């Protein structure tokens, strides 16, 4: 088990190098001069530009730039961005916000998706099942930004139940509306996955055995069906955590959440290589760790899976 975890953690190294290299290269290859773009319509003197270029190593060839970035990274020095702010500070500011948003969305989609899916699966073919299936299809079909604006208008502006935008003062309560929008699509998938899994497991032989033991239906469902049904759902939820962290750009823009998505978007616009790569690196780490967590959960839920060589 320990060996498995260590092996998985070692796998982070090539994944990390590969992604940072790729992202660094893409930012490097972006057209335009980031320094000139920084000053907009009033270009500074050539001397200032040259000095700035040197300060950010922009004169060096790609491999040297990337090497310097790695060297700084391993000395825990992420450097400063083009506005002079330390990148580490930026990360420390934006990641907690997005993490809160993602966790809230994950909880919402997990709790409601599993609950709705379980009920729908147990009442297969009923009115609840049919309506939930149609609704989930609608949710999947409608793009996030449409859904986001619609909910913002309806709940935030017209009904006034929640603040339409989040702003700089981020609290768990203020993030509910964006979290609902962010988790909506995954919620639909979790629901459908749980439903299918419950239906399959309700027909399993061991459910018949449990009934033949004399267990009531509720006991059969909670102790026997649910745990078996959650195995595929957990995998999906884990994978979606990565997507929630990285995919919040649209939602963060709609609700003005000062999180990773917004920052990443600005950094790409400014061709700020170091910032983009730093954010993406952390996202990669989160993604890999989330998947490791899923694998461990998986083994806990299903004893047939054991990670021993």
């Amino acid at each position, binding site marked *: 088990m320990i060996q498995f975890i260590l092996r998985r953690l070692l796998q982070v190294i090539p994944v990390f190098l590969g992604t940072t290299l790729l992202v660094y290269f893409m930012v490097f290859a972006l057209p335009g001069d980031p320094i000139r773009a920084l000053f907009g319509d009033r270009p500074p003197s050539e001397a200032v530009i040259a000095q700035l270029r040197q300060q950010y190593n922009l004169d060096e060839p790609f491999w040297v730039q990337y090497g310097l970035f790695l060297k700084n990274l391993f000395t825990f020095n992420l450097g400063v961005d083009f506005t002079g702010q330390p990148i580490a500070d930026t990360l420390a500011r934006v990641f907690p916000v997005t993490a809160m948003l993602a966790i809230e969305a994950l909880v919402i989609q997990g709790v409601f998706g599993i609950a709705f899916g379980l009920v729908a699966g147990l009442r297969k073919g009923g009115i609840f099942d049919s309506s939930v299936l149609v609704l989930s299809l609608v949710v999947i079909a409608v793009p996030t930004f449409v859904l986001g604006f619609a909910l913002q208008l309806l709940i935030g502006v017209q009904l006034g139940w929640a603040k339409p935008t989040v702003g700089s003062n981020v609290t768990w309560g203020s993030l509910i509306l964006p979290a609902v929008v962010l988790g909506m699509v995954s919620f639909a998938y979790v629901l459908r996955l749980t439903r299918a899994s419950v239906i399959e497991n309700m027909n*399993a*032989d*061991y459910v*018949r*055995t*449990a*009934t*033949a*033991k*004399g*267990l*009531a239906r509720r006991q059969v469902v909670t*102790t*026997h069906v649910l*745990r*078996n049904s959650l195995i595929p759902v957990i995998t999906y939820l884990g994978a979606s955590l990565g997507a929630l962290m990285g995919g919040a750009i649209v939602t963060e823009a709609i609700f003005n959440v000062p999180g990773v998505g917004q920052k990443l978007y600005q950094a790409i616009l400014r061709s700020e290589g170091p910032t983009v790569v730093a954010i993406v690196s952390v996202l990669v780490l989160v993604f890999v760790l989330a998947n490791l967590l899923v694998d461990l959960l998986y083994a806990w*839920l*299903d*004893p*047939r899976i054991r990670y021993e*060589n």
Partner: protein
Amino acid sequence: MTDFITLDPVVAPAPGKNEPVLEVRGLSVDFGVDKKWVPAAIGLNYEVRAGEVLAIVGESGSGKSASSMALLGLLPSNSRVTGSVKLAGQELLGTNEANIRAVRGKEVAVIFQEPMTALNPVYTVGAQIVETVRLHSEVSPDEARLRALRMLELVELPDPEKAFRSYPHQLSGGQRQRAMIAQSLSCDPKLLIADEPTTALDVTVQAEILDLMRNLRNKLDSAIVLITHDMGVVADLADRIAVMRRGVIVETGTAAEIFHNPQHEYTKALLAAVPHLGQGGSDAAVEVDVTAALAAATHAELTSIPEEQLLRRERENAAALAAAEAAKPQGQPVLELTDVAIEYPKQGRVPAFRAVEGANLVIYPGQVVGLVGESGSGKTTIGRAAVGLLPVAAGTMKVVGQDISAAKKNGRQLHEMRRHVGMVFQDPSSSLNPRLPIGESIGEPMFLAGVAKGVELQRRIEALLDQVELPRNYRNRYPHELSGGQKQRVGIARALSLKPKLMVADEPTSALDVSVQAKVLDLFQNLQKELGFACLFVTHDLAVVDVLADRICVMQRGRIVEQGTRDQILRNPQEPYTQRLLAAVPLPDPEKQRERRELRAQLMAADPS
């Protein structure tokens, strides 16, 4: 068509056990299909007393399982159950859910067919038994645990503590079934319903489970309803038998009555269709006396057979063996394995697995060689390697004169070789492409090999359908429109389409009902005689091999432990494993099975490995 059959009044119940534990009257089960009620069981009447085993026998679709599940209300919601089911005088049908729940698991327990799927894979065996115990009695977790351990001990699991902590997948098939039985017995049920309890198990394991069930019946005095399709299992365990066909009990009687004096046509046909180890072979009149052969080979002394009779039977057996030795096969071998080892190649982190080691085997033209063994013995592996589906890791393998040991995967050589080899698979439903009409399935090998096309191909397909005795107009049907036996006929026709010199048949009749199996085996035998192909017949069923094979190879744990002519193996088995295997096959005859059981007990006592 209600068919009330009164139970034979001659069957006197054992003294002091007059009251039946279970009394079933006019039990009918219907399933709602497309808004119509389709009957699965019609007007069943039977009763079971304490300490008695009632076997309900029938083929698939006879309603034996559905009617038994109906006793406890375990059928899906689209079913309707009418009639009366009384457990110790208490009516079960129509009582409320809470009442029936109190009966389930406590008064009436069920043992299911496939213990791997019938136990929940995510909980330990112990947890599942404890759950049952605590559900029906107010005991502390510790007491329940002790009870569960006692049960696991009762079912003769070697290490109850370990079994208690194990998950179902960590136990072997037989151990799992023992755990399942332990769970069912944990609340001292009055009635035990065993639904095909040994069908998923190997014969030697089956024999052990049957022994266990017999011991338990004597110890616990519960009534047992045994649902099975296997006449051998019935002969081994049943006191009384009810034969079911198409939802109706066609005949009931004591085991002796049913086996020796069957009244109903169907019972007679069913008994005739059961392959009977020792009765196969070219000369069906001469039956191999396997019990005598085993007794001679192991020097066992049996109390159930008079010594004189046993000696005479042993002498007859020896004489028949000498006669059979005379004939020897000739010609160039069709399949020749010399010290062959076969490996499943390594996949990523999973290392290569050597499934067969040091196999020597020769098949001459026109010869049928039966490859017998239990699950995991490597028999299927040899079959697959013979058609080039698995690489040969060591030794040489010659198929139809060509050495394919070093052939490249999917190379030209294997492609050539496969033209001379046909293969029939175990599951006819999954080995035919569901989207192809069966005519195309049959014709595909010929088309791909470029042997025939157009009108000629169509003519050949029709000829093959004639050969396997299917109507020509079936050619446009799809596999799901055919019965299991018909599908296997298609499988055989496809294997024959290139006129192979060698046929590899991998458990071709295991998925079929006995009466269908008998017909398919008969057809196969006729075709083999007519076309003269050599055949490697892979099976777990010794009785089937006995019907078909000229030679028999016995495999155990990846090695061929014994091989010889059919007579050598059946009449003079030398290896302890072969002897155990032969002794474990239950005979569809209660008296002969009693002799066999004694013999097996002695074998196991002499060599308990």
